[in-house]
């Protein structure tokens, strides 16, 4: 490793920034893939793998991809919830690789909900 100048140091910082933000839990968008037993059976892992790939390709370092358990709606798996900062979460169902790519581009990157795939607005809470 050659000695760094100030620019090199800034380059390194840019490269590792995403990991730092992720550890601090700082994000502008959070994508939750539901990983219940039937979700996994229906292909939730493919959705997860695709997401990780496209998030990285997009260069966005403020998007978090996480998992949660069963969403209680087996027939509509795989499902994912997208929550942009300060907005209501949106649940998408019956996902495929193509659908999640479209959702990512339109909803996460451009802020437009893909209504044709959306299951419900909001995420149910305990009463």
């Amino acid at each position, binding site marked *: 490793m050659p000695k*760094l100048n100030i620019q090199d*140091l800034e380059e390194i910082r840019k490269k590792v920034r995403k990991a730092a933000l*992720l550890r601090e839990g*700082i994000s502008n968008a959070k994508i939750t893939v539901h*990983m219940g037993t039937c979700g*996994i059976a229906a292909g939730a892992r493919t959705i997860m793998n695709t997401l990780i790939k496209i998030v990285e390709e997009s260069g966005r370092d403020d998007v978090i991809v*996480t*998992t*949660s*358990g069963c969403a209680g709606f087996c027939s509509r798996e795989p499902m994912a919830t997208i929550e942009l900062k300060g907005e209501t979460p949106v649940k998408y169902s019956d996902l495929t690789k193509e659908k999640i790519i479209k959702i990512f581009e339109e909803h996460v990157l451009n802020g437009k909900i893909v209504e044709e795939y959306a299951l419900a607005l909001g995420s149910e809470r305990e009463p």
Partner: protein
Amino acid sequence: MAYRTHLMVCTGTACVSCGSFKIKELLEEEIKKQGLDDEILVVGTGCQGFCAQGPIVVVQPDDIFYQLLSPEDIPYLVEEHFLKGRPVKKMMYTPPGEKTHIPTVNEIGFFNKQRLIALRNKGLIDAEKIDDYIGRDGYNALIKILTAMTPEDIINEIQKSGLRGRGGGGFPTGIKWEICKKSEEFPKYIICNADEGDPGAYMDRSIVESDPHAVIEGMLIGARAIGAEQGYVYIRTEYPLAISRLEIAIEQAREYGLLGEDILGKGFNFDLEIKQGAGAFVCGEETSLIHSIEGISPEPSQRPPFPAESGLWGQPTNINNVETWANVPRIILRGADWFSSIGTEKSKGTKVFSLVGKINNTGLVEVPMGITLREIIYDIGGGVPNGKKFKGVQIGGPSGGVVPASLIDLPVDYEKLTEVGSMMGSGGMVVVDEDTCMVDLSRYFLEFTSDESCGKCTSCREGSSAMLEVLTRITEGHGKEGDIEFLEELGYAIKDASQCGLGQTLPNPVLSTIKNFRHEYEAHIKDKKCPAHVCKALIDFHIDADKCVGCTVCAIKCPVKAISGNRKEVHIIDQSECIKCGICKTVCKFDAVTVE
């Protein structure tokens, strides 16, 4: 590679000793087994502060806190949480006496009242990766001072911030730097004091283990300000993990050209060397430490001259504590105004304390100056265990004093602690409850300091043994009228006549307990009683005839067979045989054994 989840496994000294390296290895294995190894990254961090709960894993970005993990937990944890997305409740933290678990770090009282400056990277970076530090603003302050600040600017900023030494004395850091800068003698040296000799304290170890680059960057800034090109970190040999992390950090900083010549191409030269300390308590005193680096016998010498004028090898030397150094980069980056907005009038910023003793949440906490003892002990520390009564807190280690329970609302800063006969010291806090005998506690600290006295001054050497003798006599039941006054008189004399801080402070625990708990000394001396039932010579065990059902358990368990009695009949203790081990009291299920 982009990972969706980072598992921050604590690999600080305490967690390592409970097997956290094994936990880390198993996590990696199981994650691989489940095919998740390109989604989930396992990271080893330094101490996360909540050492009593180790091994600890924090899941980011979800902030979920898993604790007291054992190797058997790991396959289930990986499958449930990381494969199926179902966080595992039973491995989460449940506060003592409560039933519901708390899932995230942010909701746990121990963490959420803290304010992190010196420990800001704890649990967030792998201390062995310089890039992790850089990702969290690391070496940004260095860029700032090399491009936009003169040495005078740096010193002004540190002075304005109000930063004071965290190693015990509380001397204003900026003023110390300025004195050293003014000297025209070259070369100059800077030293980081990581000797940390207070028994039970480990804040400096923890900073070095979790964030060694913060110390290095702080030293770079100090060196630039005063004009030094060589620095030393003096660290005790008993800290192998901290030493190894620091070695790695120095190596990586050299590779990046952040240590060495022409740093960042700005014509600034500075390098660092580690010196391992022999471990005696007095070696932490600055003049003694300097002697130790020079390879001569580590005895304190007369000040003045202060090290800033004539220190290492007779050259101007600036010495600061680990925590002091770790604060410096943040002050430079965020500004003196930000720093001085935290804290009290004369004590700015935060302080790291190690919270130990009779407290539910033992560990390391960083809190703003001016926080009350109540907040530290109850909100963060979770109070005193087993429903016992809080009696006081010994602050400042063997040089400090006890703050009694009546002062629980005292705001913690340098001045307030000194006012009540205690001191900030390096930040050791030992909580004591009703079962702690204050005479015995002072005896314990004095035993330590009298043992550690280097013997150069008669007052410190002879005075401490004389005090220890009297204290021992009192705890053994042979206290005499006039002992208290003798201890006070001798204590003040030692403070006045001793040359270094060790002698000047060693009477503090005794003086402060006499001041606040005089009745306990009197009970030992006049009534021959130990109110806390600790001093063996002053207590007797008895069996309450009304409560004893004659179950025989105590008679069977007594190691010296001092208890006699037939089954279903009241038992009796033979006082001449009893060695006061207390076992009978512990084993009796009927509460029939009493102490007097």
